[in-house]
């Protein structure tokens, strides 16, 4: 039975639960500034994504890991440019 629950996965799961609770603090504590709250959300979400990618999806386990890292990092980069480019052009510019 024990061999079915590898330490790495259990730790990853506990980690993702803790990160979810950490993200919840932004709504539990009133009077937190929006900047602090958003920073907490960005950090916990990014950490959650890394837990899934590294511990659960094993992105670094094969010889072609370099190509995988490049593919995913490039996609994330273009995604971030899309999101922040949109914010810059359509939201922040009118504030």
């Amino acid at each position, binding site marked *: 039975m024990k061999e*079915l*629950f590898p330490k790495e996965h259990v730790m990853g799961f506990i980690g993702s639960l803790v990160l*979810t609770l950490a*993200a919840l603090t932004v709504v539990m504590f009133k009077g937190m500034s929006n900047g602090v709250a958003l920073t907490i959300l960005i950090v916990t979400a990014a950490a959650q994504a890394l837990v*899934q990618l590294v511990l659960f*999806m094993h992105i670094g386990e*094969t010889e072609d890991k370099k190509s995988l890292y490049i*593919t995913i990092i490039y996609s994330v980069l273009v995604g971030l440019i899309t999101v922040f480019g*949109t914010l810059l052009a359509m939201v922040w510019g009118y504030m």
Partner: protein
Amino acid sequence: MSKENKSVPLEYSTEENELKIFGFWVFLGAEILLFATLFSVYFALVDRTGSGPIGKELFELPPVLVETFVLLTSSFLIGLGVHAMRIGRTKAMIVFYILTLVLGAVFLGVEINEFLTYIHDGATIQTSAFMSSLMTLLGTHGAHVTFGLLWGSGILLQIKKRGLNAKTANKAFIFSLYWHFLDVVWIFIFSFVYLKGVL
């Protein structure tokens, strides 16, 4: 099919298998961009609520928390399923995959109920730009989960019929990548739609 390499897990054991897994990562890269554009639309339109409700009035955290923990657990379980597959415990693997799909169905049930509540409250996809972008983003994720349920069930049936071999193990592993990815997308929805929305 090229010869099997015994030194790596079954799902990587042929060249075709390796290429399929690599190709799926490239597909996930495209999925990241799909969701990035949907998030961009949502962020641009989040304050355009017109005469409809704003996020703070609309969102209820308890069902969203249920969805989050259900999806996190199902992502953990499919990870255990892949591990069980690698140590040759096919029965345990199938149990983990079934539990994963059951939790996926629970998630979908809660999400559909949430949509019905919105519509019941008079907030439909036509109410405001905010509602349109919200429902497009949530709906695209929900449609992915729905497709995942069908896909995962199909793979389970195939494993039951043909047993675990290089081909079925490859499919089961690729499905686990898809499922973990949907969990990552949900975490971003949870953080930047719901939590940010009720701040």
